[in-house]
């Protein structure tokens, strides 16, 4: 794209002299102004307008109503920071925060490591390269709900395959939906099944931009394959890594579909909110209890949580191969 623009410039350069003839006519000068100055902004404006309507406006609206005691079926009253102070003392909210962070860590750490290894393997010369590379993306095109429904069956307490396999080793059946850690693990596997391949492809794309001569030079110096991976691939992947980690952070902290489907579409997230995420908490407050103000405040706290989470991860990832 940028190439085309550059190529176009020389042909445009002689234009101004020609333009002088039309200057006096004000209508034309308006069109010229439109053409040269306004057109680029107009052309990019649909995105910003859509963002304004569907992004910024709800954001502001949510902030505004987070200061109200807003019951859908009742009254709307100003409470100032009342919702926020109530929430900081709300054990259910904090439980949702802990659940969300725990599932994020349990899901994301193995996922990124696995994606890296997978990408490294896919980066080698293998047979049916295209087929195999596309294959790892397959889980992504299945619907989240379908994935969650199948995994929910696998993790059934009484008739699930996972408990059946565990029973070969003499383990007692695990109630995946009733116990906190098992429920987190179950949901983390759903997320990983779906997203590992996607991240692997992104890593693969990043790996292919690394100049081959770096590896050649390293080989000549006698660096092992493993050493090359850790000393060249990983540091060179830093920008990709930042993208993947931030993406996973945002996705992980707004987790909703998998845990909701895991409890039959009930946003309570287990009988005792064992795996209720902050998103589900917001949904429950807003669309089950109809406490819109409280839900709005929770949404803003989630936003802050994501900002902080992203910042921490960004700082951590930036230190990879910290010699630069």
């Amino acid at each position, binding site marked *: 794209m940028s190439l085309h623009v550059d190529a176009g410039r020389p042909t445009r350069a002689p234009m101004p002299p020609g333009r002088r003839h039309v200057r006096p006519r004000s209508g034309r000068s308006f069109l010229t102004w439109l*053409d040269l100055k306004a*057109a680029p902004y107009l052309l990019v404006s649909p995105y910003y307008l859509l963002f304004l309507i569907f992004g910024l406006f709800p954001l502001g609206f949510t902030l505004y109503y987070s200061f109200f005691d807003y019951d859908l079926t009742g009254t709307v009253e100003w409470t100032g920071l009342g919702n926020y102070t109530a929430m900081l003392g709300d054990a259910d909210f904090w439980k949702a925060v802990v659940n969300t962070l725990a599932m994020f860590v349990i899901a994301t750490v193995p996922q990124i490591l696995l994606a890296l290894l997978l990408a490294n393997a896919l980066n080698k010369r293998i047979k049916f390269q295209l087929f195999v590379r596309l294959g790892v993306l397959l889980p992504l095109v299945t619907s989240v709900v379908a994935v969650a429904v199948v995994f929910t069956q696998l993790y059934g307490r009484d008739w699930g395959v996972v408990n059946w396999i565990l029973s070969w080793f003499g383990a007692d059946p695990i109630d995946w939906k009733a116990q906190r850690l098992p429920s987190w693990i179950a949901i983390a596997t759903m997320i990983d099944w779906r997203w590992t391949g996607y991240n692997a492809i992104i890593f693969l794309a990043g790996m292919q931009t690394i100049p081959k001569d770096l590896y050649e030079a390293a080989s000549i110096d006698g660096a092992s394959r493993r050493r090359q991976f850790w000393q060249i691939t990983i540091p060179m992947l830093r920008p990709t890594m930042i993208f993947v980690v931030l993406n996973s952070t945002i996705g992980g902290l707004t987790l909703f579909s998998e845990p909701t489907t895991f409890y039959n*579409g009930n946003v309570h997230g287990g009988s005792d909110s064992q795996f209720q995420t902050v998103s589900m908490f917001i949904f429950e407050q807003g669309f089950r209890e109809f406490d819109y103000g409280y839900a709005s405040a929770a949404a803003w706290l989630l936003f802050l949580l994501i900002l902080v989470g992203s910042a921490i991860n960004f700082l951590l990832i930036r230190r990879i191969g910290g010699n630069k």
Partner: protein
Amino acid sequence: MFNNSRRGRLLAVAAVAALALGVTTACGSDDKPADNAAGGGSTAAAGPVTITLQTFGGGKNFGYKEAVDKWNAEHKDITIKYDNLTDQFEQVYWPQMIQWLQSGAGAGDVVGIDEGGMGLAKAHPEWWADLGEFGLQNRKADFADWKWENGVTADGKLFGLGTDVGGMSLCYRRDLFEKAGLPADRDEVSKLWPTWDDFVKVAHKFQDKIKDTKFVDGTNTLYNVVLVQEAAKNGNVSYFDKDNNLIVDKNPAVKSAYDFAQKISQEGLTAKLRNFTPEWNTGMKKSQFATLGCPSWMLGAVSGDGGAGPDFKGKWDVAAVPGGGGNWGGSWLAVPKQSKHPKEAAQVLDYLTGKDAEVSVFNFAGNMPSNVQAQQDPAVQGAKNEYFNDAPVGDIFAKSASALQPVFLGVKHAQVKNAVESVVSAIDDGSVPYANGWKKLVDDAVKAAG
């Protein structure tokens, strides 16, 4: 090069035009629904009208399948589209419905409302079409006073007519009872458990013999059964008193019901399945439990394909419930104001709550009609349910139906019930220790009501 700049200009103009269009359509969309409604109204007279009937419930749910098929075969001008949205009322159906009603779009033309939602529905007359306008005031004689009164809004407008009443019985698996050396005949089974204490004793006897089937499904079903029985002894109130104050911690009925739920769980008599979940449905198909608290509408939940299904036909039977009668559940049909065809919707509602349709529901699903004419119909009074080993369900439910007392349910009943039942399930699946259960139940109820 001239071409180039001209194209740029054209693009710019096009962009402005597109923008302007975008803005006008965005602004215009506000007025659109009104136009559509008017348009819809005028076409209503011309072409065939589709009336969407939205309900909830497991198995055969409202049991309208045969009644709707019959109507659609006989009427060319009005077609009923029967849409059972979900198994779960408090958690899924009702919150969604409230959003639709409040936003003015999305609800069907005729919608089912469980007793737990009626408090809120009555408090919002603006949600509903006035059925009085369509001549349904003349249906008053068809219903018991309380069933009729509950379908009238706070400002005296008729908005809903009753479909069914709960009544109460206990369903049991006769084949498993035989296997456990217990009597299988329904009269003898009824004699086994005049009280809930007797019921627990029988449960232990059963459990001593049979290991892979639990006696009870989980805590929730019997919790609700005991709650309505006890509520009847405590002024017919459950979570709210008649002034809509939360009385969860003060009403002895709630504590008794909770204590019973805790007892059966603690003594290992439950299969730890939460009712109206896929696991619970599978539990019926895999014989994970041998008894089930059965208001009349529960018979359809068991016999339907989603429940135990045809494989268990004749293996279930119906006996008397320990501790005397009670009324759990029962629903109403109403026409949302947003319906584009309120007249036709009212016509359909009139038919579905009428005698013939209600008799068909009873025979198809087992839901006891609240329509008095239907209750007295010989086809109901003498009905036997083939699925439940020819149990004389007409005799069991119809006789007590006229004497049923309604339990008062507050405006926020559905929310509180949802919160409370989560705790009642949580003590069963072990995520909340028995010792903390009652306190958590009260705390969560206060939160949900607040």
